[in-house]
């Protein structure tokens, strides 16, 4: 049996290949967050100063909604033809699958963010007063927080009726602290203030939830 990390790698590559062929998740995410951006900019017509204050919230709400689209897609792919059962009867460890899915979603959502951020900058005339690398760090930590819980809850909602509705119902309440931290950190950095506390909070949130999700995933995967 190959090492768990090897299985994670091949599963991740398989997911990337499937996504490359269908582009279901990335396309729908992109279009969806584009819609959110446009709708938001109709709703508010902010000056450069105001937009610095609200941009953090807007960006993350857009990404959160878009991430839900991607998260529902990842497991939908495994449910079609019940491919997940083929994984479950194999000796491959459940956590390799989970890790691969989390990393895959992290890549998808990061790609989305990289593509959408310029749009936000243009539409809202954004200019950061703080260092941009800090924004990137907040984005990475925040995205991880969303996808690690999101992947877990999406797997959980597989076992429920009307799973597509279930995911946001489970994900949003538990993500509130992370979301608050992302929004506050982003706003603080955009305005040239320090965001050390929020980054530390996000990092520890990531750490705790990654650990617990890894501990519980096998149980959830094999619940029937």
């Amino acid at each position: 049996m190959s090492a768990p990390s090897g299985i994670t790698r091949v599963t991740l590559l398989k997911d990337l290949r499937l996504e490359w062929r269908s582009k279901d998740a990335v396309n729908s995410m992109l279009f969806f967050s584009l819609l959110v951006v446009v709708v938001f900019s109709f709703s508010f017509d902010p000056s450069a100063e105001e937009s610095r204050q609200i941009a953090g919230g807007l960006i993350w709400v857009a990404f959160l909604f878009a991430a839900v689209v991607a998260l529902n897609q990842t497991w939908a792919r495994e449910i079609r033809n019940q491919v997940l059962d083929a994984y479950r009867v194999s000796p491959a460890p459940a956590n390799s699958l989970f890790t691969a899915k989390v990393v895959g979603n992290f890549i998808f959502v990061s790609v989305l963010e990289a593509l959408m951020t310029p749009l936000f900058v243009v539409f809202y005339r954004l200019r950061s007063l703080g260092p941009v690398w800090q924004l990137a760090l907040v984005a990475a930590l925040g995205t991880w927080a969303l996808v690690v819980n999101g992947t877990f809850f999406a797997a959980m909602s597989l076992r429920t009726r009307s799973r597509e509705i279930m995911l946001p119902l489970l994900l949003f309440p538990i993500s509130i602290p992370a979301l608050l931290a992302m929004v506050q950190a982003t706003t603080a950095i955009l305005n040239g203030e320090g965001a050390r506390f929020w980054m530390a909070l996000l990092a520890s949130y990531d750490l705790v939830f990654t650990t617990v999700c890894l501990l519980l995933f096998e149980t959830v995967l094999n619940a029937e």
Partner: protein
Amino acid sequence: MKKAFPILGVLTAILLVYALYQALVVAPTEQTMGAVQRIFYYHVPSAWTAFLLFFINFGSSVYYLIKRCATADIVALVCAEVGVVFCTVVLITGPIWARPVWGIWWTWDMRLTSTLVLWLIYVSYLFLRRFSSGGQTPLLAAALAVLGALCVPFVYFSIWFFRTQHPQPVMGGGGSIDPRMMHALLINWLAFSCFAFLVCWSRYRLEKLSREVDEAHAMQSLLDPGGRAL
């Protein structure tokens, strides 16, 4: 056991009446807020009771994950349900109190906000229990309960920091509290906890009974395949 339930019921009723008397008559009227402050004796004990129930929910969920014991699952379910009810009471009495005192119905005050988030988390727990069908429900619910409980410290920290950045009217916490007020508060908490325990107990019996009925039906379909369409 069967006799204990009505006895406890009567005791709780007496305790509740006594607590009401304590809160409305014995405790002195607060000087700045006036009589409306007396809602404090319902607001705070409800909150404590809700937190206690959520804590029990967490404990029994962990126990369920380790031992897979059906009783622990029922306890977790019951505590979440009753906890959500008490949490709702907190969220309703909060604004009722805030309106005359602060002049606003709602403020994103730290305690109110974190209680709201807590309420959201446990409502989503109940949603999961409702939407998942079959034997996996306890397992999924227990996993969510653990994640939800772990989220609580993060909720508190984030909102605490969020609020200290943006000062808002905060409930007058500091200062010494009149011993009669403290007494009334503790009596009320005791009464509320007894009441919560009573509700949990009867809900527990109901849930157990309904599971026994399900099991009996399952037994029947086991013995008589024709009886499937019950």
